[in-house]
């Protein structure tokens, strides 16, 4: 397995000098994201997110299983992240790097532990049958800020996903195909997003949003804040690195809220566009008794 590439001394020095004179290599402002592109697939729950050159594919799926013994009334919800060698030869399948462990842990904390998905609504027959919702996050290309992009992709795929409709009659569970009954969306409570700040300078006085791969390689610390558009913070992860002033962290959080509101609006808009695109024809049109004359 080749080692992860490291930027040269010249590049490291240059990035720091540029940041100290208020410049970024791609001409962005410090609190500006790269253009975020979202596209949905033909199937429900497939979404591709591009953040500059970072590219992530997320797919949600559901199957019927037996619930955990200690939680008979809850469904199961898992997030599987994979950094494939396609993103960088330094990533190997089945041997998680630190990046991958941190990524899956942060997604877990942001989306699962914050109760974004109502797992109780996934229960079909108490203690016997429940839905297992699974999101697979594939990193296709890595140019920094994986966490924010992966979190956006996870939330987008879950909100786009539709699970098959079910009914229970006389203790018999029926799962309907999409042709029989329109699939139903998941019970969704709130949409948390991650915003990652990278810190530079001796005391972490320079804070930058959406760092690229090169910028990530020279940062002295980072802080990931997860919150929803109502300003409810799900988690703050500041894992090691240079200590940062509490006051500047507060400022980071308030800017993060602005960004999250933008994310939320963008996702709502894209979901509405996709719903409109799908609405043409469909089961409703098929069932209508009107004839074209």
């Amino acid at each position, binding site marked *: 397995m080749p080692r992860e*590439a490291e930027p*040269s*001394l*010249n*590049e490291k*020095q*240059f990035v720091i000098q540029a940041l100290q004179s208020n*410049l970024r*290599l791609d*001409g962005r402002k410090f609190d500006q994201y790269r253009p975020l592109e979202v596209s949905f697939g033909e199937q429900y729950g497939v979404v591709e997110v591009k953040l500059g050159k970072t590219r992530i594919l997320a797919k949600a799926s559901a199957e019927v299983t037996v619930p955990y013994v200690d939680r008979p009334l809850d469904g199961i919800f898992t997030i599987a992240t994979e950094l494939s060698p396609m993103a960088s030869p330094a990533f190997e399948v089945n041997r998680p790097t630190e990046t991958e462990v941190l990524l899956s842990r942060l997604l877990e904390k942001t989306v699962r532990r914050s109760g974004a998905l109502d797992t109780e609504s996934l229960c079909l027959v108490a203690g016997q049958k429940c839905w297992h919702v699974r999101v697979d996050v594939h990193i296709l290309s890595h140019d920094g800020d994986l966490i924010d992009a992966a979190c956006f992709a996870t939330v987008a795929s879950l909100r786009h996903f539709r699970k098959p409709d079910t009914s229970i009659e006389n203790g018999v569970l029926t799962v309907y195909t999409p042709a029989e009954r329109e699939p139903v969306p998941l019970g969704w409570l709130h949409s948390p997003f991650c915003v990652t700040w990278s810190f530079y300078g001796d005391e972490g006085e320079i804070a930058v949003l959406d760092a690229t791969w090169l910028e990530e390689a020279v940062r002295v610390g980072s802080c990931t804040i997860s919150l929803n558009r109502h300003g409810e913070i799900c988690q703050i992860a500041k894992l090691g690195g240079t200590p940062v002033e509490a006051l500047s962290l507060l400022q980071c959080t308030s800017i993060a809220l602005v960004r999250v509101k933008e994310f939320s609006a963008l996702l709502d808009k894209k979901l509405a566009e996709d719903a409109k695109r799908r609405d043409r024809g469909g089961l409703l049109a098929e069932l209508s008794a009107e004839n074209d004359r």
Partner: protein
Amino acid sequence: METERPFVLPGDSIDPSLIPVPRQQDAQTQNSKKQAVLRLGPGLRHMAATGAIVPTVPGQLVVDGRKRSMWVESKGGRYVASVGDVVIGQVQRSAGGDLFYVNLSPYTSNAILPHLAFEGASKKTRPQLAPGALVYARVSLANRHMDPELECVSPATGKADGLGPLVGGTVFDVSLGLARRLLMARSREEGQVAVLDFLGDEGLAFETAIGRNGKVWVRSDSIKTMIAVGRALQKTDEDDLSVDDQRKMVKWLIKSMR
């Protein structure tokens, strides 16, 4: 003379009328025997079984009738060292007390740069290069199954000729195709790239070193200038800009950076 450049895909069959044939008078004269041999450049392969010439990479097929050579002009891929190329490498570490391991492209095996392959270097005065430092070097040895060897000095004259450690500045990654075009003696006419000239015309002062392995080193007193050069190069590369578009893009970039 090259005329039009048809686009070919790997495995395509090449129109036989494009393959240059030796002219009648050339074939008869003795001294042009060398020119009668068809020379295949990168991206083409001669299939021994059928005798056909097949492209192995997508790109534009270039035919030079005068030199009786043809090759496929493609944007890049991974750098494979060949003798005589000037490259920008990143020092990994010093090993064995007499050589540096130098990386030419990420995730590939290292090239070797002997300590004595610098101008004025002797056993007592060795160059000191920290891991991560950049060097501008020439490939002196390249075999398919061996690590390439580099040198920062001309073996004939013992002079550096501009090669050696690159101090300060920064390095930008570009495609191999653009690096090759930038290195052409007449890059504006042949390579259709004049972005660095336009940046200079706008009054920016900077110096560059171009590595055939897709790296461009830029140094300037002003950080803004270095960023402008890097962005202009990467924009030219990603959007495949023509010379006119390059001029417009540089104008726009300078205006937006102010």
